[in-house]
């Protein structure tokens, strides 16, 4: 029983780690690396689903690393929220790994694509499952440095330029995150998140300092999650690497940042009407508006999607700002849905570019006639992203908007609906430019070396599409799960009791 309990929570980190070590051992043998990566991802997905099923049935699961009791040692804890994100992330990772078999060039694989992706998955698993503030920082750094390496693999000028912006702003964010953690430790004298949450209620005279610390976290994690004033590094860097890299980074990283925000602001810093709510609301609204406007103005498939990531982050933040059970559930649902849909849209773009040699709308066209299956995959994913019923995005937006109107936040709910309309506009633009219109005749010669289209590229997209469709059409159980997750998040004593009262 002990072994099984331990393994249950450790495997989401151990499996990718073992996979990465094996991959480094087989540095030269690409085929073996591919097999290991595939098996690891399947194993990771299986473990995540196992953990999710366990948490659904038996509630929050915890273990203590090294056997040290709770406030002193490092706690690994899985609640519904983290399990749902873990499963979605593992599925997206699986799709990208399968996709990379047929798209990524050999030099980049030789440079260690698979081990780095595995370690990034480990970092994501650790961030989602840890119950210790400093441990969270360490996991976050692990996944960040993997993202740095992934963005620069290949070393073209564009990639390096984008990476410089990404690295600089994220190093500053890491410094600020450390400062925030230091402030919390200086006030409370503990790093265990549950213990900090308990102490935060016992220190009413320090509320002002808690707000200061929370601002450190908003800024630092906000940079990593690309919220409004701090998002500019994302569209500058996410479109530079090949799709097999940008899909996994775009699909997972910002959402992990958002997970940290939701976790901290439900557990440690309560969102109080007044200062914090206002800050979060303004940030959420502006993130949505700036994101969609940026996306509508771009002429490059990847750049449109990069700005689209920013706008979607706004929706997730909006749920946190409104802070009712329905709103938080909407956020959770939206993060899950977005991980899958965004990854899938990036993959479709990669498949189109592989055949046509470009991401620029000027040189693209006629995909609908040539590749109807690809077009259908794009269409359904895009409709999910735009929030057309019965696809998955609709339920997320519906929950968020309903929560906004119910609790009197009319402005933000209105903005979210308006941003939804512009989302449809820019997705229609992609649809027209890439899929419907005929391919233009005057195309530069260097874009004409077409690669043969590999049908297998559609396999990971179909996999994701199935999940997205299930998420939308059979929404009832998923919404039920997210509501449950939101209840857990809002009643933080459940989390605290699971950590502290275990022994």
């Amino acid at each position, binding site marked *: 029983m002990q072994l099984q309990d331990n393994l249950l929570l450790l495997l989401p980190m151990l499996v990718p780690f073992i996979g990465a070590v*094996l991959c480094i051992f087989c540095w030269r043998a690409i085929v073996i690396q591919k097999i290991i990566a595939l098996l690891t991802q399947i194993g990771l997905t299986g473990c995540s689903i196992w953990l999710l099923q366990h948490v659904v049935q038996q509630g929050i699961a915890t273990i203590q690393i*090294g056997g040290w009791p709770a406030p002193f040692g490092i706690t690994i804890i899985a609640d519904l929220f983290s399990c749902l994100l873990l499963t979605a992330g593992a599925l997206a990772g699986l799709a990208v790994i399968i996709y990379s078999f047929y798209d990524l060039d050999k030099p980049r694989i030789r440079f260690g694509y698979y081990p780095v992706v595995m370690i990034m998955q480990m970092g994501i698993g650790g961030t989602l499952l840890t119950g210790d503030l400093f441990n969270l920082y360490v996991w976050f750094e692990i996944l960040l440095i993997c993202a740095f390496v992934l963005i620069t693999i290949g070393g073209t000028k564009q990639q390096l330029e984008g990476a410089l912006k990404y690295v600089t702003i994220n190093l500053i964010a890491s410094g600020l995150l450390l400062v925030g953690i230091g402030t919390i430790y200086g006030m409370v004298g503990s790093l265990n998140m549950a213990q900090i949450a308990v102490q935060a209620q016992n220190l009413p005279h320090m509320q002002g300092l808690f707000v200061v610390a929370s601002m450190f976290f908003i800024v630092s994690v906000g940079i990593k999650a690309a919220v409004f004033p701090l998002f500019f590094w994302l569209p500058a860097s996410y479109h530079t690497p090949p799709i097999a890299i940008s899909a996994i980074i775009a699909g997972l990283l910002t959402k992990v940042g958002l997970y940290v925000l939701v976790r901290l602001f439900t557990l440690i810093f309560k969102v109080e009407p007044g200062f914090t709510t206002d800050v979060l609301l303004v940030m959420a609204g502006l993130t949505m508006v700036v994101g969609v406007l940026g996306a509508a103005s771009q002429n490059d498939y990847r750049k449109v999607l990069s700005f689209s990531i920013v706008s979607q982050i706004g929706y997730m933040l909006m749920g946190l700002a409104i802070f009712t059970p329905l709103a938080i559930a909407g956020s959770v649902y939206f993060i899950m849905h977005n991980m899958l849909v965004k990854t899938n849209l990036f993959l479709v773009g990669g498949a189109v570019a592989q055949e046509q040699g470009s991401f620029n709308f000027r040189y693209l066209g006629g995909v609908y006639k040539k590749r109807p299956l690809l077009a259908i995959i794009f269409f359904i994913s895009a409709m999910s992203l735009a929030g057309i019923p019965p696809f998955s995005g609709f339920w997320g937006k519906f929950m968020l908007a309903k929560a906004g109107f119910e609790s009197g936040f009319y402005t933000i709910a209105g903005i979210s609906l308006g941003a939804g309309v512009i989302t449809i506009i820019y997705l229609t633009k992609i649809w027209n430019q890439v899929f419907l219109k005929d391919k233009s005749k005057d195309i530069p010669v260097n874009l004409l070396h077409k690669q043969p289209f590999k049908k297998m590229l559609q396999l990971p997209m179909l996999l994701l599409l199935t999940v997205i469709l299930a998420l939308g059409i059979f929404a009832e159980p998923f919404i039920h799960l997210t509501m449950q997750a939101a209840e857990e998040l809002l009643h933080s004593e459940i989390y605290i009791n699971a950590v502290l009262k275990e022994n």
Partner: protein
Amino acid sequence: MKTIILAAALRLFFPLFIFFSFYILIRGHNHPGGGFIGGLILVIPFIFHVLIHGAKETQEKLFLKRVYSLRRKEQESDLGYSIRNIGYRLRGLIPWYSRQDKDRVLVKQYVIEPLHIIPVGLSLSLIAGILPLFLGEAFLTGVWAKAALPLIGKIGTTLLFDIGVYILVSAVVLKITMEMSKS
């Protein structure tokens, strides 16, 4: 930057640094020290070697592994030859044994890259973490052997973990040094 004084001094200090890094590694359990700092100390002479001689020469001098075999006698069976070779390789493990064999041949040579050492360190640490799981303890619990070794003291999984860190850190820093000195 080829200075004779530094090069001569480095030759003397090389073993000193290595032994000192071992000492720091082993003392780390109860006193300041440990795998990370030990690994850094281990790399210092290598970094100096790179500074003095350049990355290429360091690789050739310190990390080039040559594998020799005996020259094959006429009309020798495969089995006999391989047995003789195994004996030769085993004798090669004795540190001060170096026979000036005229009849040995170079079979292959390869450079030991830091990249090949990194997973060894990682997997040692991983094993140290997983071992207690099978004894019914939590992940990464320190499990100690009953008996103590002379000089080293009690051995347990924490020491194994530290050795993993030691190997990993030295390999990573070496990799970074090599990468930066190539231009």
